[in-house]
């Protein structure tokens, strides 16, 4: 390992920010990340709407990828030694395409490099039908205590339309298996605004989802992204998306049903029983730092955002030599303040002046820094003061027009 020392030294020195004299580093940019994201870019197949960094698993060098991930873990903890990790999120792709042996080995490597808090939230994404009892055991043994299933809809016709290979019953079975294996903290994703989807489809799906009685639900609207099959269809006018009014009705229906069933609407797309909000995602929304490892993963630490190399083989190659970065961007204090608003207002509890001061310094006043947009958005009834008067949050109308709000804080 001795040959690696100079490399590590260089990486460390690269990590040391060169700050012009007189520029104060905000406290936020000195914080050690307490959240860890790891990307497993493999899937059994590619869904028609998906533009995430994922590759069909068959024939992929999965073991070599896990080796490379370990290299990246070593380099990462050498560069920014972690203090205590409160949340881990393993996303993809579909992390559960790993076989039980690979799963056990991967999870062990995470624990070897990162000191997890005893009560850490440890989430893994899974697709229905990829979690047999043996794998679930390996996950639980490895520390995973929360699973997020990509259910999307309970209509088999729609599942086919969007390129999913599971059926509605698989979701029910997978949830039952997970509960039997001792996982209580479960979530499923549902999608709305799908091609040919009608409000009644969604009503059925919500009913079936609520029957599962899970602590957490995520509700995403379909967005047609470039480089997807759906985008090509859309360009040719062959993607029968619901009209805007129908989509709004779906979103309103979801909010009504979920809140009616006792779930808190805590973020634009997320609902949870009290205390079961996703702690990991809340780190993003609170503009706090996080480690990001794996192909195409994003991280934010010490005032820099990075994106890793996306391709599997290029990532594996690079991780042998160095931190496999595609790009690293310096985030200025002012940009970080804008991010604070942009992501923070996605939470329905809003942004708080105390958090702003914690991140940017005791003299920093949120209300002053963003005086003009706050006044305008409040006047437009998109924002309101939080009940304690200490912060701002979206109004009901502001939730629907979130982008108008978030955009207003960018310079």
């Amino acid at each position, binding site marked *: 390992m001795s040959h690696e020392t100079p490399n590590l030294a260089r990486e460390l020195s690269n990590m040391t920010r060169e700050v012009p004299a007189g520029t104060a580093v905000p406290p936020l940019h000195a914080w050690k990340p307490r959240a860890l*994201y790891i990307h497993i870019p493999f899937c059994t197949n590619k869904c028609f709407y998906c533009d995430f960094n994922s590759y069909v698993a068959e024939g992929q060098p999965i073991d070599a990828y896990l080796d490379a991930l370990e290299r990246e873990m070593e380099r990462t903890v050498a560069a920014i030694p972690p203090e205590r990790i409160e949340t881990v*999120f393993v*996303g993809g792709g579909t992390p559960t395409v790993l076989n039980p042996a690979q799963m056990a080995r991967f999870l062990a490597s995470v624990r070897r490099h990162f000191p997890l808090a005893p009560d850490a939230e440890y989430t893994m994404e899974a697709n229905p039908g990829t979690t047999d009892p043996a794998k679930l055991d390996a996950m639980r043994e490895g520390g995973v205590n929360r699973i997020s299933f990509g259910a999307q809809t309970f209509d088999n016709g729609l599942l086919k339309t969007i390129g999913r290979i599971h059926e509605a019953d698989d979701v029910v079975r997978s949830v039952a298996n997970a509960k039997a294996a001792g996982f209580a903290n479960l979530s499923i*994703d549902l999608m709305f605004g799908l091609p040919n989807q009608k409000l009644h489809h969604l009503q059925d799906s919500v009913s079936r989802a609520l029957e599962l009685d899970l602590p957490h639900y*995520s*509700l*995403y*609207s379909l*967005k047609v992204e470039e480089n997807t099959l759906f985008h090509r269809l859309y360009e040719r006018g062959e993607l029968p998306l619901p009209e*805007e*009014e129908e*989509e*709004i009705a779906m*979103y309103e229906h979801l909010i009504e049903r979920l809140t009616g069933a006792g779930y808190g609407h805590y973020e*634009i*797309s997320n609902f949870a029983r009290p205390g079961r909000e996703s702690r990991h*995602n809340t780190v*993003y929304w609170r503009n706090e730092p*996080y480690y*990001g490892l794996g192909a195409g*993963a*994003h*991280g*934010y630490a010490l005032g820099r*955002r990075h*994106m890793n190399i996306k391709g599997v083989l290029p990532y594996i190659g690079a991780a042998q030599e160095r931190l496999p970065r595609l790009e690293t*961007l310096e985030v200025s204090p002012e940009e970080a303040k804008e*991010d604070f608003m*942009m*992501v923070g207002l996605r939470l329905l509890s809003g942004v708080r002046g105390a958090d702003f001061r914690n991140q940017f310094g005791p003299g920093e006043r949120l209300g002053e820094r963003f005086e003009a947009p706050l006044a305008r958005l409040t006047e*437009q009834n*998109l924002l309101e003061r939080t009940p304690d008067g200490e912060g701002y949050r979206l109004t009901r109308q502001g*939730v*629907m*027009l*979130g*982008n*108008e709000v*978030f*955009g207003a804080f*960018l310079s």
Partner: protein
Amino acid sequence: MADLPVPQSHIRNFCIIAHIDHGKSTLADRILEYTGALSSREMQEQVLDSMDLERERGITIKLQAVRLQYKADDGETYTLHLIDTPGHVDFTYEVSRSLAACEGALLVVDAAQGIEAQTLANVYLALDNDLEILPVINKIDLPSAEPERVKQEVEDVIGLDASDAVLASAKNGIGIKDILEQAVKKIPSPQGDRNKPLKALIFDSHYDAYKGVVCYIRVIDGTIKPGSKIKFMGTGAQFDVVEVGTFRPRATSVDELGPGDVGYVTASIKNVKDTRVGDTITDAKNPTAEPLPGYRRINPMVFCGLYPIESTDYNDLREALEKLELNDASLRFEPETSQALGFGFRCGFLGMLHMEIIQERIEREFNIPLITTAPSVVYKVTLTNGQTLDISNPSEYPEQGKIEQVEEPYVKASVIVPNDYVGAIMELCQGKRGEFVDMQYLDANRVTLKYEIPLAEIVYDFFDQLKSSTKGYASFDYELSGYRASNLVKMDILLNGEKVDALSFIVHRDRAYQRGRVICEKLKDLIPRQMFEVPIQAAVGQKIISRETIKAMRKNVLAKCYGGDITRKRKLLEKQKEGKKRMKQVGSVEVPQEAFMAVLKLDDD
């Protein structure tokens, strides 16, 4: 390089008259090449069209003047000055400027297309100026060329002797020598006396950052050289000449310019306003008694408001207009204020193309993003109290109750078209409130149609409709024919209940309802949804004629999981924000640039 003065008998000054696409610029290039002014290797495509905009649009806007040496068959070497001319209807004025500096003109006619309306107008201008006209039938190598028919047309339509017309193909270099021989033999040498006091015509100018104003001149009498003290007779300004020279085609300084010479003069002139195209330059100590007639300063026919999108660009916009005005005497501007758009300028133009070109030059060359309001003509309004007003800005149009009478400008329009399209043209002209005047056959297939049409209708979308209803086969020319009383009303547009002055326009009462409906529909498409419902209304006086509603934006939020990819979220929102920057906040409504021109680009159906 020092030049000996050329004897006047060996100077020939001429220009080229041609319709767009009939090959004028190519012919000019070949002449330059043939006379060795430029080798073909040096030759950039169509050297004379030097502005980007001209090259892109394939038209000549600004004139240029080049000095060439030609050794003729008689063994003598002649100095030729070739002055380029614009070919579009809007620029008749510029044509008259170049004609005044010449003794002859090449009339270039496409052997397949024949004479076009605009060519005709320019030939008559040249005949009025007593120029010797040499017909050139171009593009004779085209399969569809009919040189004999076109020669006959030149004789029948213009009344010129075309028996000696040169048959040429500028593209393939055919006939170039014949053209030059005829120029030497037929075009008179310039008259003028070098011993008389200096008398020179400024026919163009441009601003050079190092030299100041560069005046393009044609010397009539006397001589001009560095050190001469000169006087501009119109403005009275006096200067010491720094440099005189000719274009070959690059600017080349010479010792002096004498009678018949075409070239330039610089005199450290920093103030653009001291020089005026059409003015006469004379010797300050020994001035000529009579200035040249100069040019009739022609009045702009079309007016619109130009406003910077960013109000901080206002002064830059003023400077840009001042620089453009320097060599574009037909451009007029004065400050104006709009409630909706803030501070800007009301500008007058010769026509729609002129307007578009100025607008594009300001955006491109001066980098100032603009909002242009819909163009208007000048209405003559007589009030009930007897007062008369010229109204070029619809927002200044008086209340209907105070108006005794309104007159609007009419033009005499000539359209030359293959006879298959006569019906289409008649329909179009009648739809534009045109009155039939005359129809004549040019030959078995081509017809000239003459109509009297309100200029406002020409400004509206006549060109586009003419093109589309004749598949581009029609050519068109017009001249102002006078004012006529008309039943006109002012149409106001209200956004969210507030009148937007920059969107008001004048319309014939019979068309008001339809025009109002169409513009409301158009604006509904152009203005993006806002966070509240926006009613769009068209009103005449207090009466609402039409109404549309832009529904409120109800949802704009990404319910999507980007995980930790904050950069991507940010880019998305930044893109959204960029779009908003191109809009103008009018009251509470964000209105995109194009909306202000919407009044113009309407389909009537």
